[in-house]
């Protein structure tokens, strides 16, 4: 779409009897989309160049002798366009029939089934019965390396994958070989896509089941998956994603368009790290130690016990996690402050270098391999430890006051960690040896189970939504800590994430002026953003 920052000349044209005003330079396809009329297309992708070769988006333009490819034809003032005229639909029906001439129609075993553009278009506008009685051309299956599997027979030759590798990854590893009906997508030599950090996107942009993910192969049918908008938790870029969930388990991550953050893409590193969200060894019930005995209890009992014991156990030191939401971290900061203040540290794994996507400069797999380092930093939390997200807690192991750990799994620590502290509170999702000494185990939800925000490397606050149901009695940390603060200070218990955000924004200068509603689905930038290349 045309640049919206500068005021632009606009033009008005008529599409399917309806007038629409668009910036000059808009294509017919985009103009139709503005009116909510999606012209069928394969080769056109908003993030890539348009070769106008699929011939599916041809529309009738009054005065033009032939049907025009709407993806490359610039809209003209006063033009009259028909996308649904007899001529245009007859042509689409014809082109769709050509697509099926050699298509194997193996929908029952195809992963794309249910989200396949060929299925959709043929179902909507195709002929009832194909006329081809000829034997079909067969290419078979090819391992493209990495996570990508290629089913040549399903391919519609839109070349989106080739153009993605050329234009966005700028690592031309795919090409069309042969010509005419024998043309097929192929890799160079044996290397294929293996090792290309953004290659997984070719699976997303494939409009049919030609390029599929090995990881997702035959795992779930598309129509059984629930899609929940979320933020990739695997680095501080904050790529917008959808969680695809079946049976309360994350089945895959898919990028969600956000032109400010990740355009249409995400890296393979992030894409393939979701199994931890499905871990079954979870803290499920809040427990506390009493007389050397671990007692499970309901939240009311545990929090009452905890608030009583908090009264005489100072000073406070805390360990937070950059995997926790902004609201969780804000609540922790408020709790620590309410208890007289104290140091809060966090540990974050860091990669040696960034992995940028050359064709979209704003996007890179960032060095910080956690989603909310910025969120921790604006709460005045201090980074400790090494690049593996380990170490740095030696000072704390001898701490004799109150020790609060939120989210950090303490994987590098033994069962004696925190033995010296008079009160050790552990808020986490999973049991861990490092929390063995904890007096309170408070089960919290993962980001996938709760609503909240992360703040990415640029300083963009972005919302995510719960995609799976929480296990047992686990609650978001902001809710647990909010209830605790209620007992200590009498502040209101936030009942929804929005309230928790407001509470956090109220005590965080960087977030002041931002409302939860402002964030929308695109996010909003905090008061001290970091300029990224390409912005």
């Amino acid at each position, binding site marked *: 779409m045309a640049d919206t920052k500068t005021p632009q000349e606009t033009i008005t044209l008529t599409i399917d009897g309806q007038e629409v005003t668009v910036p000059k330079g808009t294509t017919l396809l985009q103009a139709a989309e503005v009116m909510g009329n999606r012209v069928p297309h394969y080769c056109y992708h908003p993030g890539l160049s348009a070769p*106008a070769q699929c*011939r599916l988006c041809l529309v009738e333009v009054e005065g033009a002798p032939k049907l025009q490819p709407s993806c490359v034809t610039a809209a003209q003032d006063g033009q009259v366009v028909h996308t649904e005229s007899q001529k245009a639909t007859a042509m689409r029906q014809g082109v769709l029939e*050509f697509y099926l001439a050699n298509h194997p129609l193996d929908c029952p075993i195809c992963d794309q089934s249910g989200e396949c553009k060929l299925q959709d278009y043929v179902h909507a506008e195709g002929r009832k019965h194909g006329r081809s009685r000829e034997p079909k051309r067969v290419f078979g299956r090819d391992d493209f390396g990495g996570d990508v599997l290629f089913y040549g027979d399903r391919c519609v030759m839109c070349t989106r994958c080739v153009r993605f590798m050329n234009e966005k990854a700028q690592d031309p590893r795919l090409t069309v070989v042969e010509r005419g009906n024998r043309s097929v997508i192929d890799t160079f030599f044996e290397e294929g896509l293996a090792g290309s950090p953004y290659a997984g996107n070719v699976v997303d942009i494939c409009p049919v089941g030609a390029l599929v993910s090995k990881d997702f192969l035959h795992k779930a049918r598309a129509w059984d998956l629930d899609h929940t908008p979320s933020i990739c938790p695997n680095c501080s870029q904050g790529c917008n994603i959808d969680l695809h969930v079946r049976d309360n388990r994350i089945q895959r991550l898919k990028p969600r368009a956000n032109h400010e953050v990740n355009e249409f893409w995400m890296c393979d590193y992030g894409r393939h790290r979701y199994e931890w969200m499905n871990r079954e060894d979870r803290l499920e019930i809040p427990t506390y130690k009493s007389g050397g005995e671990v007692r499970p209890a309901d939240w009311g009992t545990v929090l009452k016990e905890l608030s009583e014991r908090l009264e005489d156990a100072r000073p406070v030191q805390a360990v937070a996690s950059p995997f926790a939401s902004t609201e969780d971290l804000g609540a922790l900061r408020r709790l620590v402050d309410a208890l007289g203040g104290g140091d809060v540290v966090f540990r974050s794994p860091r990669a040696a270098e960034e992995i940028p996507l050359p064709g979209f400069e704003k996007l890179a797999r960032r060095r910080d391999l956690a989603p909310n380092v910025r969120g921790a930093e604006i709460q005045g939390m201090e980074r400790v430890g090494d690049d593996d997200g380990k170490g740095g807690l030696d000072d704390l192991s001898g701490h004799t006051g109150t020790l609060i750990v939120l989210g950090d799994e303490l994987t590098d620590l033994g069962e004696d960690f925190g033995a010296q502290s008079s009160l050790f509170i552990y808020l986490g999702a999973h049991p861990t040896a490092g929390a063995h000494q904890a007096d309170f185990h408070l089960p919290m939800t993962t980001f996938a189970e709760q609503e909240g925000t992360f703040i990415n490397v640029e300083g963009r606050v972005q919302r995510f939504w719960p995609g799976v149901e929480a296990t047992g009695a686990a609650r978001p940390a902001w809710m647990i800590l909010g209830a605790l603060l209620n007992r200590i200070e009498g502040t209101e218990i936030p009942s929804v994430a929005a309230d928790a955000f407001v509470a956090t924004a109220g005590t965080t200068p960087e977030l002041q002026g931002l409302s939860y509603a402002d964030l929308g689905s695109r996010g909003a930038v905090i008061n001290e953003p970091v300029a990224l290349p390409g912005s």
Partner: protein
Amino acid sequence: MAYPYTHEKEVRVLSRGWGDPTTRTLEGWKALGGYEALAKALKMERTQVIEEVKSSGLRGRGGAGFPTGVKWSFMPKEKKGPHYLCCNADESEPGTFKDRELLRWTPHQVIEGCLIGAYAIQADHVYIYCRGEFFETTQILARAVEEAYEAGYIGKDILGSGHSIDVTVFAGAGAYICGEETALMNSLEGRRGLPRIKPPFPAAVGAFGQPTTINNVETLCAVPHIITNGGEWYRQWGTEKSSGTKLFCVSGHVRRPGNYELPLGFPMDELIYDVCGGFQDGRSLKAVIPGGSSVPILSAQECESCTLDYEGVVEAGSMLGCASVIIMDDTTNIVKQVRRMVDFYAHESCGQCTPCREGTQWLSRILVRIENGRGTEEDLDTLLELGEQMTGTTICVLSDSAAAPVASSIEKFRDDYLALIRRGEKVGAA
């Protein structure tokens, strides 16, 4: 005897010198008045050159028949970067073999035409894009280019005029589609030979992103003669709208197939029965494809009063194309001929556009089935509908070209199809 076959009705302007190996050399060509036109053109204003060509009525000989002078005038008047002239020598249309002869007998004629054209459109560089299979031809041409460089006809400061033009001979890799002008430019740039979307047109954004004109070999060969003798002189042949002479590539069931240079507007009857000597005893005319495999087929009846000029052939129901006249007698199995042509297009489709990629192969498979006696009458309807779906829906016209002979043959020779369908019999002597 001169060049394989000649005929007294021929007007040998471009084909003058064919059959005589000395015309290949610079000396031989100069003996025929070679490079005089270049010298004359370089002394003229560019616009005068274009006007002269416009006044001659010369039309593009590659098939489309677009007026050459008008095409040249589309080039930007003000030069902002390099301009290019591409000479399209990727002659691959089935039935066409005129450019090959021009290149191998009179390479200097081609070069001279290119240089005058380049001068007219302010091109710095001429690329002669030769068909990949033209091994011998390309060598002869390359040798001639070397000679011309040495003699100062190409290169810096040509003939002391202050104008510099370079010429590069480029060999294709053997793809019919690279004769399509935008695919030719892609191929020239080292890309896959895929036709580009127009607009932008080559005169605005062509080879290497610069203004470019693409002309056929035969078109450029006519230019030196027009410059030497004037546009009016060229108009002495042909008709009002189709002026000049044209090389007719005649193939098929005639006694003397070959290249004949005849004035446009020449009667088809005369070409077949007089110039080419008619058919073998006892055979008669069944069909003619007048302009290379891409044009509709004509029945014997339609050929009767057909004259061979751009308008005359359209009137008869086909197109002159590049004047490659394929003549078929009554032993011909039309279905088989059409199937062979469609096979060619299926093989040569670049595979970009869906209707062409899938359609050409589908047509071919149906035709094979009909040819083998396993077709049905519904297949004919399918063929016609597929043809319609393939016409006007693609980036270039290869798809239209594949569909044209199928549709026209079903219309005009339905009985041939039906005979195969109904009885599984072969038609003609096959």
